[in-house]
């Protein structure tokens, strides 16, 4: 499968992934953001394509998406920005977006554009596993694009195994019963759930996301998974006044000090 991810999960390093909203805070911030993330040692990036109705997202990502759409973000522009970033950035890129936009673009054309621009895998939160397996798997495989499926604390064992089987390069473990959004603490119930999933000894590496916001929650998640994904807390950090690169550098340092 995809070369960029090949060794990432092998050497046991705890991985930091950052979610960004493409075209935010300004339309042309996507490329400098990707460059700064690699420079600051982030292991891979989830590039969020802004959507008008992101049903799994909390206020922070909703608002950044609304702004990015107003800024003029659209799919063709995103692909050209990613191509531009690929001239200098080599860490893996994961596209994250809702199914409707893929449908309108056309799935085949979309996959081709991902490959051409340098996207390595995808997360489509509202694409059900059954529909993927029956209708779309062949196309994604043709283009060598992996998909990460989500599991939540409510997911039954059978569902988790199914997601484990279908996911590549990693399984996306949602940290709690919640939409995206920064929370400052991880509860005992969540820790038990992290432990329960770890003990299932799944095939896929796991990345924990939703509600990871600072060094403490990042470290807690990393104890039971290959790494963690930070979204809303990062969006808040780049929403602040001041130089974009500076804000990014300081935020990443605060996680990995």
């Amino acid at each position, binding site marked *: 499968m995809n070369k960029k991810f090949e060794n990432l999960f092998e050497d046991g390093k705890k991985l930091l992934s950052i979610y960004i909203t493409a075209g935010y805070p300004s339309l042309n911030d996507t490329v400098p953001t990707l460059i700064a993330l690699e420079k600051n040692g982030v292991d891979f990036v989830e590039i969020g394509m802004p959507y008008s109705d992101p*049903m799994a997202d909390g206020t922070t990502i909703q608002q950044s998406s609304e702004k990015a759409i107003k800024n003029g973000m659209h799919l063709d522009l995103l692909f050209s920005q990613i191509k531009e970033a690929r001239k200098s950035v080599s860490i893996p890129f994961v596209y994250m977006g809702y199914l409707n936009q893929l449908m309108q673009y056309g799935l085949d054309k979309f996959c081709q554009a991902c490959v051409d621009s340098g996207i390595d895998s995808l997360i489509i939160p509202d694409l059900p596993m059954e529909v993927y397996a029956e209708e779309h798997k062949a196309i994604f495989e043709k283009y060598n694009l992996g998909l990460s499926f989500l599991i939540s604390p409510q997911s039954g064992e059978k*569902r988790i195994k199914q997601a484990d089987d279908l996911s590549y390069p990693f399984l996306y473990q949602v940290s709690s019963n919640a939409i995206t959004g920064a929370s400052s603490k991880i509860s005992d119930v969540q820790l038990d759930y992290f432990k329960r999933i770890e003990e299932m000894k799944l095939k896929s590496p796991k990345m924990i996301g939703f509600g990871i916001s600072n060094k403490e929650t990042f470290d807690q998640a990393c104890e039971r998974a290959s790494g963690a994904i930070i979204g809303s807390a990062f969006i808040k950090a780049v929403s602040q006044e001041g130089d974009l690169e500076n804000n990014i550098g300081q935020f990443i340092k605060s996680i990995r000090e």
Partner: protein
Amino acid sequence: MQYAVDEKGFYGEFGGAFIPEMLYPNVEELRKSYLEISATPSFKKEFDDLLKHYVGRPTPLYFAKKLSEKYGTQVYLKREDLNHTGAHKVNNTIGQILMAERMGKKRIIAETGAGQHGVATATVCALKGLECIVYMGAVDIERQAPNVARMKMLGAEVRPALSGSKTLKDATNEAIRDWISNPEDTFYIIGSVVGPHPYPDMVARFQSVISEEIKKQLQEQIGRDYPDYILACVGGGSNAAGAFYHYLDDTRVQLFMAEAAGHGIDTNMSAATSVLGTEGIIHGSRTLLMQTKDGQIIEPHSISAGLDYPGIGPLHAHLIKSGRARSFPITDKESVDASFMLSRLEGIIPALESAHALTILEKYDFKADDIVVLNLSGRGDKDLGTFMKYMDEYE
């Protein structure tokens, strides 16, 4: 039935359940149990009893003599406006609250546009002593103030949806997010035939009491159990689904849907989905919706909060696509005209939503002996604030 939902939750190519994994256990639990629970004798008995003694069903099928004379045809009004709480919405909330109760849920959430579904949900929650949270767009809270007060009076909490166009679509997003965050104790009572399977089918079944009664009442009144036409407005499509349900496969009956054209279908202030929409996914269902070519959902406009929605239910998308039903886009102004017309002609103040369906009488040339059943989905008390603004024009 040719127009029934299939095993996977589709009507032709429309429907399904395109939801994030976090919602899967909830939706799956409902999918597995909704048919079984609603078929139990105790459920059926309680549902029928409540509709009869609490809601006041059957609602009359009223031959509107003056309206018939005006349009030179035979118009029967199905008086859903006479239901307890003032609209058809309560048929569905009674069904869903009994479902929630039997599934052991303690906390009820709902979205609302015009507030009619919110009021109907708050009502059944009061009846059953369950906690009730209603999401409502901030714009709708403003324009349907009487219904906000009613929900509060009934003990519900009304939470404003502040994203997007701050109307029904956004309230639905907020309700879905609440459900993701509260998967164990919460039941989401959806207000129309929208959302992921099994909601469109479940809501249509609860609303199907409307056409069940129409059949009986027509038989009694005219000696045959079907009309030539059924007219209904479509926001998400629940009152239309209920009025069409038992006639879906009966092609002697033509099905007409009134959609909100807002300022007109050639303006960017409209909500006429079957005219302006393309295939896509909204609120977990593959259907027709208004969107940009890039797949961003377009913020709709209608004077009527209950029709101010950029999608339609998957059943209706299928009815339109297959040619079984026909859609009429009706403007804001036309619906206000029709509201004043019916009020003064028959002494019935219709909801702005229902007034859209009335306008079809202006647009289509019905024959003198055609039997036309118009589903009057709700009453206009909630819209008096809007009507007052136009009063001068109709003195």
